[in-house]
């Protein structure tokens, strides 16, 4: 079956512009996660959705970052007024409820000029 997909694969934007990144999880996965991977670093947790529960936003670095998820399907991560330090690969993952293996998408490489 299809894995986690993300779009766009690459995004180049100018400082100060808003960007939207999209994630399509594996069908049936109720949990969805966003992570950020800066060059040469590990992954940082950003936000987590689980079913109809309130999302865990504890990893969002600033109020310029927000994310939404419609039911148990697509999620969008929005970064407003982008800064150069936002340049990174943004990875999405999904899993079944509770603990379970997280399946990762290929990521969106964001470059802020």
């Amino acid at each position: 079956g299809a894995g986690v997909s993300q779009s766009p694969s690459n995004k180049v934007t100018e400082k100060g512009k808003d960007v939207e990144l999209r994630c399509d999880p594996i069908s049936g996965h109720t949990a969805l996660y966003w992570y950020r991977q800066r060059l040469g670093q590990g992954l940082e947790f950003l936000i987590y959705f689980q079913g109809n529960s309130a999302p865990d936003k504890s990893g969002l670095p600033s109020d310029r970052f927000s994310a939404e998820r419609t039911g148990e399907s697509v999620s969008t991560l929005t970064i407003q007024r982008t800064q150069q330090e936002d340049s990174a690969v943004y990875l999405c993952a999904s899993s079944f409820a509770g603990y379970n293996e997280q399946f990762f998408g290929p990521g969106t490489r964001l470059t802020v000029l």
Partner: protein
Amino acid sequence: AQSVTQLDSQVPVFEEAPVELRCNYSSSVSVYLFWYVQYPNQGLQLLLKYLSGSTLVKGINGFEAEFNKSQTSFHLRKPSVHISDTAEYFCAVTPIPQGAQKLVFGQGTRLTINP
């Protein structure tokens, strides 16, 4: 809170040699442990995981890892590496389910296999 330290940022080895990638963690609660691999320009793929039971876990592609609770370590090993093992390897932990299951990752170890 949890933290993960991967002690080597880069590990170069020759093909068919053994390799060990080191991972230590810190946590005030019990955790599950994982190793993920990231091939160039790809997403992360699970290599293996420790949830409970035998402390020696075997994963895909001939990798194995041993959980040592007293030393809070989860080192990854392979007895004989191949060129195709060239990738970045990430150790990660998550607290045993209490709610959100976010993963806490180490900084990664870049494994380079030389012919």
